[in-house]
């Protein structure tokens, strides 16, 4: 089975986020980056499927030179090869545009299965995978917790709201968006890191794929949210803060 994993590189989870000049995106100067967490689980699911059934895992990602570190990490964990769509300024692209970019590179690969995270930790719109499915004219399922091979296709466990789940079957090829935390992420081994250096990374530009930015949705301004609730912050040493809170909870909020 040929499995394509679409990965996004995002600012590391505990980054200090500062708004950049122009007010439309982050100041990227001091940021460190990592593989979007749900995408890391999609990669892990792909590696496990390959271990069970054989085949190939191909990583697909788009972004500037810095995304090479995420590609190397994925290859070190066991992906067989990678496609890097070289592009700058993708933060200005909406999910449909990103879907078109990924679809242009994915179509030529003719994968049996496309896996990606259910959403990104930065933009978080949760759409790219679904848009990609539509653009490739493949069936899809979102918020997937488990994947099993079924006759002529896959049967997946989807998460619904409020603790409900559902099994859904569909023919292959298909696109699945993977929920965070469904498996245990592996670490790259020393051997894996060594091997990654010899693995193929195909580079292609958005122009070569014939896809240009045409945003239907534009981010005008990025800012710190205004507080809607008046939060009373309690100051002092931990003991003083604790005593003040107990006092507030007893006599102001009256919940003790």
């Amino acid at each position, binding site marked *: 089975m040929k499995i394509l994993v679409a990965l996004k590189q995002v600012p590391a989870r505990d980054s200090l*986020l500062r708004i950049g000049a122009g007010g439309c995106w982050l100041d990227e100067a001091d940021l460190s980056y990592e593989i979007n967490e749900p995408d890391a689980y999609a990669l892990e699911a792909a590696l496990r499927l390959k271990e069970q059934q054989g085949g190939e895992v191909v990583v697909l990602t788009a972004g500037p030179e810095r995304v090479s570190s995420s590609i190397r990490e994925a290859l070190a964990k066991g992906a067989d090869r990678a496609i890097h769509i070289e592009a700058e300024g993708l933060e200005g692209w909406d*999910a*449909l545009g990103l879907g078109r970019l990924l679809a242009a590179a994915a179509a030529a690969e003719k994968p049996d299965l496309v896996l990606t995270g259910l959403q990104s930790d*930065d*933009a*978080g*719109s*949760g*759409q790219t995978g*679904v*848009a990609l*499915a*539509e*653009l490739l004219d493949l*069936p*899809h*399922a*979102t918020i997937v917790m488990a994947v099993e091979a079924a006759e002529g296709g896959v049967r997946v466990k989807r*998460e*619904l*709201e*409020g*603790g*409900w*789940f559902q*099994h*859904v079957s*569909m*023919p292959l090829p298909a696109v699945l968006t993977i*929920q*965070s*935390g469904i498996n245990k992420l592996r670490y790259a081994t020393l051997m894996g890191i060594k091997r990654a250096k010899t693995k193929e990374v195909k580079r292609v530009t958005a122009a070569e794929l014939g896809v240009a930015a045409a*945003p*239907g*949705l*534009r*981010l*005008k*301004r990025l*800012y*710190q*949210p205004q*507080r*809607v*609730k008046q*939060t*009373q*912050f*309690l100051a002092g040493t*931990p*003991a003083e*803060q*604790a*005593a003040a*809170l*107990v006092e507030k*909870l007893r006599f102001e*909020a009256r*919940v*003790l």
Partner: protein
Amino acid sequence: MSGILVITEQSGGAWHRVSQEALGAGLELGRALGVAVRACVYGSGASVAAAELAAYPVEQVIALESPLLEAYTADGAALALEWLVREEQPEVVVMPHTYQVRDYASRLATRLGRALLADATGFRVEDGAAVFQRQLFQGKLTGDFVFETPGPNFVSVQAGSFRAPEAGAAAAAVETRTPELDAARIRQTPEAPFREADRAVDLTAAERIVAVGRGIREEGNLALAQELAEALGAELGASRPICDNGWLPMERQVGSSGQTVAPKLYVAVGISGAIQHLVGMKGSGCIVAINKDADAPIFEAADYGIAGDLFDVVPALTEALKKARG
């Protein structure tokens, strides 16, 4: 191309709770832009729900019915609603940001060559055009977004962001429509929804909850939160990563994929407050947040905040509670 079409969600005639809020958002947007609002409901039970929808101040209600919509599928919903949007030609389509919408809406929007503005929390009108807000970086930042494309444009709205409207007296006209659907184009075969094994705790019934998040760092540190919960007479809850790690069972997870709770007191310990967690607890009576990052979104929802190291603050709080109880 004109007006607003609100696509509501129901199951067997019962509303999804965010549906009314989406309707509220559609009506507010209609008033602000001075355009008419229609509402639609689809799937099994649509005609029952449509009759109820007609009591709200909308111009028209459309019940979209087809044997192929009896059980929800992403392909079925996307194809049926694409048919409706092409027939109705709305300028803006408003939906509730539910798990179902997350499943099909991008497919629908993509089929019409549009991007979806997902999970909007508000809007304002500038120079006759709507500017929508949505959260980025898991709620740490907010963005103002505008559509650059002509309609139909698609927006889904976050739970708890818009007020549900009042039902009025004048009944809107209800029309039942049957989309032309080809069964062969519906590729998913769904099975009946199910719940996992029986639950040992029911967080929704708890009066007080101490919830713990990533900030606790290690499973062994959970004892700190457990002691605080005992001192408060509270149940222990958690954000998703804690349950994903298997440190606490899934039934203790608070948030969109877990329980929605509204206790009298909710103490969030080491929880940054991603949107998915906030929607599950922001209805709590009194919210306390303890987090080392004073800019964490959890403080947005908190009545009382302690910006500090939970490993110092939580033991001090447990001690202070014990002292207060004598």
